[in-house]
């Protein structure tokens, strides 16, 4: 399978301050990747470098096989970017904005219409972008980025402050596009639920990748599930590890068997989440 993004030693320094430190990436085409980290982790800086908008202090990046410094034009042809802030002209209508992009990237009318319908924007065509709600504007941003049929779609915190319905619509539409066009999706987010849907998560803090893997792999490696039993008659097996009032559970099946055996009715069980992963790795929560 082709490599969509290859980065070696990606670094960005501003004077004494290092925003992105030696990031290495190897991302296969068609995958859904998430960069998870709090504000200030370096996610936007990293994405600006990967998408050729910002110069790297050090490192080498290949997008769709093209070196982003030596073959910038070809790399850019493969890239679509949904910016953190909308880049549409607010005084122009949805159609005027999209038509401009369509002409710049030589997309067909049919394709543009298809994208407009997929993201449910048909009724909003003649409305000025400035008059749209946040969710509507974001959908237009995404269609705008998709018109060039990018091999890799980068999204920088795309669904921050959006309602759940809009987020679901966006993710479903993108999943469909990934299947149809083998498009790679690279997302930066501080929403755990979004990161959880991805194939591979990179946890970023202070410019460094602390861990990578699927949500399940990271939770397995960096968290423990916690059990609290409220029934007074319960006697825990000797090998169970207790921490304050909670038992640290590795084997969920064995735990359930024990609870059934001892006829426990009142208990609470909490699986490790990505937030726990983050706390384990950095000592703080993602949304601090």
């Amino acid at each position: 399978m082709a490599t969509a993004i290859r980065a070696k030693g990606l670094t960005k320094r501003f004077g004494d301050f290092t925003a992105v430190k030696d990031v290495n990436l190897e991302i296969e085409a068609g995958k859904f990747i998430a960069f998870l980290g709090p504000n200030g982790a370096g996610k936007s800086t990293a994405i600006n470098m990967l998408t050729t908008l910002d110069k790297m202090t050090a490192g080498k990046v290949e997008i769709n096989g093209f070196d982003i410094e030596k073959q910038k034009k070809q790399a850019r042809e493969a890239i679509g970017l949904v910016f953190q802030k909308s880049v549409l002209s607010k005084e122009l209508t949805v159609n005027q904005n999209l038509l401009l992009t369509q002409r710049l990237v030589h997309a067909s009318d049919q394709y543009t219409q298809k994208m407009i319908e997929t993201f449910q924007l048909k009724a909003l065509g003649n409305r000025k972008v400035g008059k749209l709600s946040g969710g509507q504007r974001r959908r237009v941003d995404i269609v705008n980025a998709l018109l060039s049929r990018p091999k890799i779609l980068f999204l920088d915190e795309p669904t921050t402050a959006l309602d759940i319905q809009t987020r679901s619509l966006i993710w479903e539409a993108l999943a469909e596009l990934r299947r149809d066009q083998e498009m790679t999706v690279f997302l930066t987010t501080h929403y755990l639920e979004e990161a959880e849907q991805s194939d591979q998560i990179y946890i970023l803090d202070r410019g460094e990748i602390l861990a990578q893997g699927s949500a399940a792999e990271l939770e397995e490696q960096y968290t423990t599930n916690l059990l609290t039993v409220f029934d007074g008659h319960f006697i825990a097996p000797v090998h169970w590890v207790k921490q304050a009032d909670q038992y640290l559970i590795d084997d969920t099946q064995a735990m359930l068997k024990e609870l059934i055996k001892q006829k426990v009715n009142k208990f609470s069980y909490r699986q490790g989440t990505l937030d726990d992963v983050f706390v384990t790795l950095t000592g703080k929560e993602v949304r601090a």
Partner: protein
Amino acid sequence: MIALVERNLRLYFQNKSTVFWSLFSPLLVLGLYELFIQYNLVASFQHQTTMLNQWLLGGALSVAALTTSFTVLGIKVFDEAKGQRAAFFINGVSERKLNSSYLIASGIVGFIMTVVILAVYVTFFYLQGQMTFHFSNLMKVLPIILLSTVISVGINGIVLLFVHNEGSFSGVSTTLNVLSGFLVGAYMPFGAVPAVAQHIMKYWPGFLSASLFRNALVTTKVDLTTKEFLGMSVKWGNQVLSTTNISLILLLASVILIAITQLRNRE
């Protein structure tokens, strides 16, 4: 390129407030003239009202070309501030193409709006009972409007190399609006200002194009001394510049300024 120019034109014309304020400066020239300046000037010039109206129009057209075209370049500043330029780069638009689209749109607007100012002034004077302009003059005036627009685009392009945020754009815009009228001698005739100011004005491109306009518009016969006083003729050293000289100087200056802008704007 056409798509980008169209976008810039739409952003200018669809914003009524922008259009109004871009016309403010040349209209202010008329307003201040009518309220404050005309009375004394007409008295000094043996009540040659028509001649002075035509003189005034010449200055106003030069101002209009500069201030209206400058407004459009505000779109460039706005795009930079909002990150919209980055979106264009991702879509394969080169920096040079993008900057050219701003300059071209600026030129188109400058031309159109200068013609609009011409119409406004002529109508205003007509309503006052003055025939200031004859259609036969249009063929003489349109090429000067074109030249005036081109040199204005050149000037604006250079100015914009130093303006990168909305705050400084706003400041420069205000300064330009205030100064342009004085620099072309629209409020006070050239001969009525101190020598130091004259020395600056003589080399200001807007003043040169204003002199071309005035020569084309003033139908009354005017002696050389009065011509110089009113900024209808320009003297560099002891040499009175002919209209051909002035046109060539402006053309050359435009080419140089636009070339510098394009070179500096390369990524």
